[in-house]
């Protein structure tokens, strides 16, 4: 440290010197140094009333904080569910090999790159996804690590990387999806495909052509869906070949003459990319987010996502012209706080954070408390692998969430509130900050809102990254500047929450549904969904469906409707095996129960859970034991460590699962796993531990035979690398591609001869099988 820490003095002066400022102060220090230098922390201890124990306890609790310097660039490898099932682990291993990192190392020798596993980058349909600083790479295969790094380095120093780029430097405009289900084909979709290729070729358009399976709208075939990089995807039904030119030209501007000439150098085959033959790397901007699935597909009902893709997130006037703040105005004019409360109670709205507690009842509990000071918190601490609804709502509909919060605060008599948003969601933080500013300017916030006499102040609190802080008592501890340890309930936050005051904590999505209820009336809301489960739920649909993305569906819709009508069925002609609903707290429901309606009770009954709304579709190539292990490794890593059952129980369950998936399982393991899951569920302090066993229990319930097979040394899907071997069969033509791709030289280069894999060297990275043109690599 060469400086005198004047910068830290400045941070303390700005953020405060008491314990409640600890997390913002640490965030600011890390912004300065890229990590938390010990000298800086010692200085902080000296200069403030915060103790060393508090500083270290908090700094070491949250994922955001680093105690060691990092490389110049951060490579974030998404290991969310969707990326996991598409081979993210292999990609991560490949990066480790590329930088020659040992087990515990994460930064390369030159200090240029630091690898980081992240839970979800929010672009599941691009899985597996890797983010290098500001650039997002999609569909990264394990053998493309060199290309990704080379491409990233080629972009350095350039003013602004073009988005959606191909490795050769040309721009990809978007995606054209053509239905190739049997109905579509029968109705002439192949003609359409040829026409699209022709039009794109003539215009030298770089678009991605994607063949999707049946979208379940067979009466509308053939279907063409245009997914531009920005804005709403558009689906064209009953398309005729002569329509194609117009459709394509409407959405994609042909390149300039200069780039046309340049593009002539490339062959047509390279211009149109499909999922199957893709060699380059795809590059996107950091703000790349999941595109919503076309809202008219299936039975979607946008409430939280009303006017999606149409309104500019931070333009308050656009929001207002589309009914924004009319609920607020109606409320101030016509409704007393009690009347608002009754509307919410009558609407049957339940907490969208996962547990489904009736929102009106929660509000009433807070309202009832006699206290001059009460707080409101908007829980935006998502962190599920494969769920990003809250982030999307905060980024895209900041005013709707704010409007819902104002209504809640009015109904419950609260005048102070916090947005708890993860610092890892910079865009959400930025948009909400901006929206708050605009709201203050327009008197939607502050004193005497719209002349109603009601006042409310809202501020943003940036969470430092801990999944457990989604639990309301842990979230509160975090705002208070402590480790995110949950607290036993009762007392509930409604009675004794933030700083000991009554506190209303609702999930972002819950608030996002409130303005609709007040504007349209609770009866109308109640008519959406089913009894006791009114309204809609936003899901992140991902995994092996033809069309993944964010969807908003009425409660009570069946799993099959979601998978087939909205998701377009299973991609690549595979078989639908199961859905994983609710992320790490949820469970797997097998295909034979696809008629199960999606509501709080039915999911719980099936051993899953609404959770925060991850919905990952699995096909017959997915190993259910591996899925259980994947979720357990997440919750085990995210356990706060306070109570025995969660801290040690999740670790031991993970141990057993790892033993099973690595061929070290033994008879009796399943029974022990089941018993331990039972006790962890019953004995844990908070929701994280209580639900952590669900992925195990549900897969044990429906797929026990797969566990038993593993114990007998067999992983039928070949996902568990310790249980499989790679070999070359007689179809080998000696093309040497596998030998060229093998990162560890386990395959000798022998042109025109049958190749051979040295299993003692093989690391089972799957590169050979992926590259083999003859299907000559066996995995057994």
């Amino acid at each position, binding site marked *: 440290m060469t400086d005198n820490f004047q910068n830290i003095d400045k941070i303390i002066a700005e953020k405060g010197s008491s314990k409640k400022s600890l997390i913002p102060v640490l965030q600011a220090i890390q912004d300065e140094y890229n990590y938390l230098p010990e000298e800086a922390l010692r200085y902080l201890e000296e200069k403030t009333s915060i103790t060393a124990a508090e500083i270290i306890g908090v700094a070491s609790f949250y994922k955001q904080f680093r105690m060691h310097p990092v490389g110049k660039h951060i490579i974030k490898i998404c290991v969310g569910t969707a990326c996991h099932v598409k081979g993210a682990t292999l990609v991560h291993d490949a990066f480790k090999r590329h930088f020659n990192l040992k087990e515990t190392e994460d930064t390369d020798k030159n200090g240029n790159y630091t690898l980081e596993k992240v839970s979800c980058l929010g672009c599941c349909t691009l899985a597996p996804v890797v983010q290098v600083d500001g650039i997002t790479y999609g569909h990264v295969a394990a053998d493309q690590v060199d290309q990704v790094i080379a491409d990233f380095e080629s972009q350095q120093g350039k003013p602004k990387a073009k988005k959606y780029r191909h490795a050769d430097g040309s721009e990809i405009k978007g995606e054209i999806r053509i239905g190739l289900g049997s109905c579509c084909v029968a109705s002439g979709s192949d003609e359409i495909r040829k026409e699209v290729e022709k039009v794109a070729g003539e215009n030298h358009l770089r678009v991605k052509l994607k063949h999707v399976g049946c979208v379940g709208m067979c009466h509308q075939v053939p279907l063409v869906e245009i997914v531009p990089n920005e804005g709403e995807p558009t689906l064209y039904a009953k398309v005729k070949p002569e329509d194609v030119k117009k459709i394509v030209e409407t959405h994609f501007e042909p390149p300039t003459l200069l780039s046309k000439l340049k593009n002539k150098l490339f062959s047509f085959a390279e211009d149109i990319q499909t999922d199957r033959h893709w060699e380059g790397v795809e590059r996107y901007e950091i703000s790349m987010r999941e595109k919503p699935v076309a809202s008219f597909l299936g039975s979607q009902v946008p409430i939280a996502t009303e006017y999606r893709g149409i309104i500019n997130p931070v333009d308050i006037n656009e929001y207002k012209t589309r009914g924004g703040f009319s609920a607020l105005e109606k409320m101030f004019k016509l409704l007393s706080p009690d009347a608002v409360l009754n509307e919410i109670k009558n609407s049957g709205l339940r907490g969208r954070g996962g547990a489904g507690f009736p929102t009106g009842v929660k509000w009433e509990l807070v309202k009832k408390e006699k206290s001059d000071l009460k707080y409101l918190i908007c829980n935006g601490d998502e962190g599920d692998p494969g769920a990003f609804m809250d982030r999307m709502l905060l980024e895209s509909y900041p005013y709707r969430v704010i409007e819902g919060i104002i209504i809640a605060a009015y109904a419950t008599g609260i005048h102070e509130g916090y947005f708890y948003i993860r610092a890892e969601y910079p865009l959400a933080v930025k948009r909400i900050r901006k929206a708050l500013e605009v709201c203050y300017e327009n008197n939607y916030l502050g004193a005497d809102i719209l002349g109603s006499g009601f006042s409310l102040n809202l501020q943003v609190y940036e969470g430092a990254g801990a999944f457990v802080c989604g639990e309301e008592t842990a979230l509160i501890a975090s705002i208070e500047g402590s480790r995110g340890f949950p607290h036993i309930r009762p007392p509930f936050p409604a009675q004794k929450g933030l700083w000991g005051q009554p506190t209303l904590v609702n999930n972002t999505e819950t608030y996002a549904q409130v303005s609709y209820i007040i504007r349209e009336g609770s009866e109308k809301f109640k008519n959406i969904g089913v009894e006791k489960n009114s309204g809609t739920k936003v899901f992140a649909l991902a995994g092996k469906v033809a069309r993944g993305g964010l969807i908003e569906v009425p409660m009570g819709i069946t799993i099959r409707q979601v998978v087939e009508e909205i998701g377009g069925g299973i991609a690549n002609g595979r078989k639908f095996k199961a859905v994983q609903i609710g992320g790490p707290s949820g469970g797997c429901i097998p295909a034979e129960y696809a008629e199960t309606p999606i509501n709080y009770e039915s999911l719980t009954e099936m051993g899953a859970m609404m959770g925060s709304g991850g919905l990952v579709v699995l096909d017959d190539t997915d190993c259910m034991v591996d899925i259980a292990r994947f979720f357990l490794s997440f919750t085990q890593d995210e356990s706060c460590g306070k109570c025995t059952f969660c801290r040690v129980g999740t670790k031991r369950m993970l141990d057993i699962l790892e033993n099973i998936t690595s061929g070290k399982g033994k008879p009796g393991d399943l029974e022990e796993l089941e018993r331990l899951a039972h006790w962890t569920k019953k*004995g844990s302090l908070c929701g994280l531990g209580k639900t952590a066993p669900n992925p195990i229990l549900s897969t044990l319930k429906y797929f026990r035979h797969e566990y038993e097979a593993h114990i007998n040394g067999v992983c039928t899907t070949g996902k568990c690398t310790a249980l499989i071997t790679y070999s070359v069969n007689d179809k080998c033509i000696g093309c040497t591609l596998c030998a060229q791709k093998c990162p560890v030289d386990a395959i000798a280069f022998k042109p025109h001869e049958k190749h051979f894999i040295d299993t003692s060297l093989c690391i089972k990275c799957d590169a050979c099988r992926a590259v083999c043109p003859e299907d000559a690599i066996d995995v057994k």
Partner: protein
Amino acid sequence: MIKLKINNIEIQVENGTSVMKAAEKLGIHVPNMCWHNELEHFTSCMLCLVKDGSGRLFPSCSVQAAEGQEIITDDVEISEARKTALELLLSEHVGDCEAPCQIACPAHMNIPQMNRLIAAGKMTEALEVVKRDIALPAVLGHICPAPCEGACHRKTVDEPISICLLKRITGYEGTEPEIVKVQATGKKVAVIGSGPAGLAASYYLQIKGVQVTLFDKNEKPGGLLRTVIADELLPKEILDKEIEAILATGVQFKGNSEIDTVGFQQLKTDFDAVILATGVLPENSSFFGLKSTPKGIIADKDSYQTSDPKVFAVGNIIRSSRLAVRSVGQGKEVAFSVLQFFKGQQPTGEPRIFNSRFGKLVSAEFSEYLKESVPGKRVFPFKGGNSGFTTEEAIAEAKRCLHCDCRAIDNCKLREYSHQYNADQKRFKTSERRNITKQNNHNLVIFEPQKCIKCGICVRLSEKYGEKLGFTYIGRGFDVEINIPFNEALDKGITLVAEKVAAGCPTGAISIKDNLK
């Protein structure tokens, strides 16, 4: 006031009383480890789980008693939950309760304590410790094959402590413990056979106020020790001296008295109990009419009681082992059983308490263990193999002991509850254990982080008493550690609360360093 029912008993408590405290008022103890009477509840260990009317389990330390609650503090399900919690904690608790040598010793002798006393030059105190379990210290110091040395952790580091020779020197150099007069029980016991088993049984009964008459077919006591073992191996004067010390407690020795079946029946009427320690009996023996196998008399493996409740059998008469230390140990244990018998209790033998064990030391741990010891290989007696140590040699050798036994051995909630709930430490041995470290630079306390169960009592006490550094949590989840911030040393971190945190620690992770205890 709040009215509730605990285990079906009605009770009234003040508003705000925790369920655990309410139960305590009824004299019902709810197990707990993370609870501390100076601190707010914390809800970490989950041992205090109880059940309410709905069957829901909840931690009673943190939940307030509520009107009309019906609490159950103990049933099969609750016990199972607590046992599982303990087993999970034990799976991350890396430490030995008793030292491996003590567990390996058939007489279960407190070897580490003997070593520490010898190292401090306190031979008499050391002898006193030995004689708690071994009635013939110097004798065994000559002939014992020393299974303890096979288990010694120091063996993994370089060479085991020379325990047997250390024990021998206590017999030579130490002064026999004074015979403390205890009130006579009025009970009489006949011990048949004056080999190591019979001598030990006689000694431990006599010093507890039981009048022992010791019969032997030979003229002099000692059994095989006298008749079979060569003089060069075991000098007769040593044997005589230690037998003399036993008889000096008041044991009546009757030599030249071979007891046959008729004589045995007579002894049964004349004495309150009979202990058979005759050594191996021939295969065609009638075994005094007691239940037997061709190998010997059948006796309960813990209490040594035979098919006749007032008859006990120890030593080679139940199974030929030719291991004097085992016979000596059995002699000590049968005395305990006989005393139980006299008190009208079911004889069970000496209770064996739960022991946490972690297995072998790994090389990374050698230096940690050596922090409490001295480097260097085993000391060999200057005068050669069988001559025994000089005092200086013994002190030097005893200092090599690694202090493997836990300081909290008699004051550990984890051990106590693990015993009570019959917990199995191996149940969750599902992955590699952590490596042991020791922080030993504080003059009052030693900190062994791998014994920690993360209850946070020390963290909260540090905070309460305003330690500048104090203990803190570092990291989270399974990998969370308790330590001093900024990697500062223990003595710098803990300046005010050393004794308090040691007393508060429920598992011996932090304990007072008093090497002579």
